[in-house]
Structures are given as C-alpha cells and as structure tokens.
C-alpha cells in the first residue's frame, strides 16, 4: 500500500516540480550561452545586456524552485490530508503512518532531484563556459581528494547523511506544526505558523539548557560556529543523532494528532 501511495504522491508533486527543474536547467543553459557569446567580439554591448536579463532570470528560477518546493511540501500535506481530499485519503485502507511516510519520502525525493537538477544546471553552465576536459579532470581530482583518507571519506558520507536526516526532520517539523494548527476550530493557518515558531523556541530553550550542564551539547552548539570542514566526525555523528531524535519527536506528534485527533471540516 505504501508503494501505491508513493506512486501517486510522486506523480502529484512531479507534475509541478519536474517542469520547473527543466525550466531552471534550460535558463541556466541560456544564461551560459549568453555569457559565452558576449565574451567574444560582435554585438558585445547588446549581448551583455541580454546576459543581465538571462542572469536575472536564472536567479529568479532558482528562487522560484525554492519557493515552489516549500509551497508544494506544505500544500501536499495540508490540502491532501487536512483538506477535503482528506475524506478520500483517510478512508483508504492505509495507516496514518503510511500517509506521513509517503509525504515525507516523496518530498525528500523531489528535493534530492532538485539538488541534482541544480548540479546539472551548474555542470551545463560550466560546460558551456569553459573547457570540458579540464573541468572533468578538476572534478576527478576533487573527488579523489574527498576520499583520500578514510576520515575524509567518512566525513563526506556523514555530511550527506546529516543533510538527508536534516531535511526529513524539517519536513516532520512542518507536518507536526500543521497537525497542531489543525486542532484549532478556526484560524488553523495562523495556528500552524504559531506552532512552528513554538517548536523553534522549544528547540532553542532545550539547546540552552542542555549546553549549560552538558559539555557535549556545548560542543554541538559550538560546531555550528565553525566552518563545516573542520567539524570532527564524532560531532557529526552526534548531530545526526540529535536530528534523528527530532525527527522521531515531530513525526510521532504529527502521527498521533492525525491518527487520534483528526477533525476534517
């Protein structure tokens, strides 16, 4: 059943996100072509002006992708589960947990695809603007450097894991906030925003309390003030654990409210 949910969820999100990603890559290409053309000879001034426009469009595209992704994440949860579509979804022979997982997993998938699309756009631009073989060699060298020592390799892997867990935790936090807002009989949107802010405040307070009498957390908070590459792997692991706990707390909260305290209009 989860597989079927995922199938529909991926499609529902994809029909908006995929075209957007393709447009972003296309504009990146356009911008790069424009830049390259304006670097040599004829009609330089005109091309430079175009380059400004396409450059602006490119940044606008990136912003748009970010904003739309955020809107989609919220909308899929809010409209499909808490709106009138909830009458369809919650009467399917599917558990509440499966619903939450399908939403979170799908959002994660499309975010990762988005990051890949961003990388593709970057490669495209580099490819158009410079020497591909040179660039590929530089890339290979960097890649080898990342994995030159076991420690570095572990760090890269840990960072990726932390990124993924961090995304999932943020998703669960948003879902939990919406689930809390849903408990109100009116002004549910404001309630959700308030809950989200409330969660942030609780996190800060907990962080302060824990770092005051626990050197471990002090290190964690300190870690945020350091450049990423200087954080020791052990701290990364602790950050991952904190994220996992956060995911669990927000996830359980969202699940509990949706499963036991659902109140569709």
């Amino acid at each position, binding site marked *: 059943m989860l597989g*079927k949910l995922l199938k529909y969820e991926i499609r529902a999100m994809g029909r908006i996100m995929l075209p957007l990603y393709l447009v972003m890559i296309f504009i990146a290409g356009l911008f790069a072509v424009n830049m390259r053309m304006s670097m040599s000879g004829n009609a330089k001034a005109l091309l430079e002006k175009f380059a400004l426009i396409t450059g602006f469009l490119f940044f606008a595209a990136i912003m748009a992708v970010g904003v739309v992704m955020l809107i989609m994440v919220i909308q899929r949860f809010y409209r499909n589960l808490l709106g009138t579509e909830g009458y369809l979804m919650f009467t399917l022979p*599917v558990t509440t947990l499966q619903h939450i997982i399908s939403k979170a997993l799908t959002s994660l998938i499309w975010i990762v695809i988005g990051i890949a699309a961003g990388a593709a756009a970057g490669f495209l631009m580099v490819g158009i603007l410079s020497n591909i073989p040179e660039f590929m060699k530089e890339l290979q060298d960097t890649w080898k450097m990342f994995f030159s020592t076991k420690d570095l390799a572990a760090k890269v892997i840990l960072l990726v894991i932390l990124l993924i867990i961090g995304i999932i935790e943020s998703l669960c936090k948003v879902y939990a906030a919406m689930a809390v807002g849903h408990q109100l009989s009116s002004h549910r949107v404001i309630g959700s925003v308030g809950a989200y802010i409330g969660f942030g405040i609780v996190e800060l307070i907990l962080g302060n309390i824990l770092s005051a009498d626990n050197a471990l957390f002090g290190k964690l908070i300190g870690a945020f003030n350091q450049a990423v590459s200087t954080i020791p792997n052990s701290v990364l692991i602790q950050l991952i654990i904190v994220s996992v706990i956060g995911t669990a707390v927000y996830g359980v909260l969202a699940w509990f409210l949706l499963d036991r305290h659902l109140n569709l209009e």
Partner: protein
Amino acid sequence: MSVLFECRDLAKSYGKVQALKGINLQLESGRIVGLLGPNGSGKTTLIKLANRLLQPSSGSIRIAGEEPGILTKEKCAYLPDKDFLPDWMKTSDLLNFYGDFYGDFDRPRAQAMLANLDIPEKMSLKKMSKGTKEKVQLILTMSRDAQVYLLDEPIAGVDPAARDYILRTIINNYREDALVIISTHLIADVESVLDEAVFLKQGEIVLHQSTDELREQTGKSVDEYFREVFRC
C-alpha cells in the same frame, strides 16, 4: 442476514457539545436504511465515526464485527457530501486510483456507467460541471463491491434528472449481502427506496422502523411523519 453496522452506547462530544449521546443501533445486510435528521442531528458525526475519521468519546461502533480500521475501510464504500477528489486528476486517473487501493473495485462496471453518461475518460475533474463531478463520485463509490455503503447526502444539490439516475443506480446495485446507509434530510425523494428509517434528533435515535410499517401505522408518508416529529 448478518449485522453489518452496530453501535453500542456510542457517544461523541466536541468539547462541551454532545454530538451523539450514547446511541444503540443494529443494521443488517440486504437493507437500504435511511439515516434521517436535520442538520446538526449527528448524522455526519455517526458516519465519520464509522469511517474512523473521528474517534468515539465513549462506547463502540463496529462494521461487520470489526472496530473501524484498515479492515473495515476495505469493506466500506464512503461517499462524502463534499468534493473530495483531487481536482487535477482525470477520470482515467481516478479509475486507476480506486482500482489500486480497493480490491473490490469493479472497473468495467464504472466504465460502463461513465460511458452511459458520456463522461469522457480523459477529462480532468476541474473541467467538469458540478453535477458531472458528483456523478463521477457516485459512480466510483457504487462500483465497489463493498459490504457497507455510506452515502452522505447523495442527492442534495443535484438536479432532478441526476437524482433519478442516482436512485436508480442505488437500486440497481442492491445486493443481499450488503448494507446501504443513506444519510439525508431530503426524505420525500428517497423514501420509496428505503427499507428502514432511523430518525436522529439532537444526537439521539428517536425512531428505527421499517418504512412500510411506519406508513401503515401512521397513515402518512415517512416524509410527512418526519416533519411532524421534527417540527420546530
């Protein structure tokens, strides 16, 4: 004849408001039952409890012997009184969706009914008129071979021709091993289709009787008697 729908002292409150006050009810297979009452009488609350869209405050409700959960959702076909299908989906998407999630979905039957009404399979819901959308919703629900059908106001806000179609579809789909519960406040249109009537007033069941018996005893139609009972 098995009991497919059973409430024991079922109660539900929202804060201080008691939507259902400890009701007891048993409904059997092979019947079409009307859940009749004005708005706010508790009909929708009862249906939501049956679908696990709400949890009881106390008491229990069982569908085919099970408390509401995944097993009962597989056996229940629910038609809400709202637009509950995703607007962006086409008819063919919805057929796939229902077929994927419900093992008892009879796709050929649904397609035949859609064809009967000239509803194209490649049209998205948002391009359809309200009446057509409602028919699609009804067709999807009634094309399931479920044990219990819960229809919440299936004919409200629909033109008379569509009403006839909907009632004919309900009669045509009748099965001896299934129970159909129609919740409505439009009794006159529906009463000839009902075996039994359940009157719900302010969260309590004030009547549960066969419709023909009711006509015989009171010398009135169910609609007329209803108006008497619920006179303001």
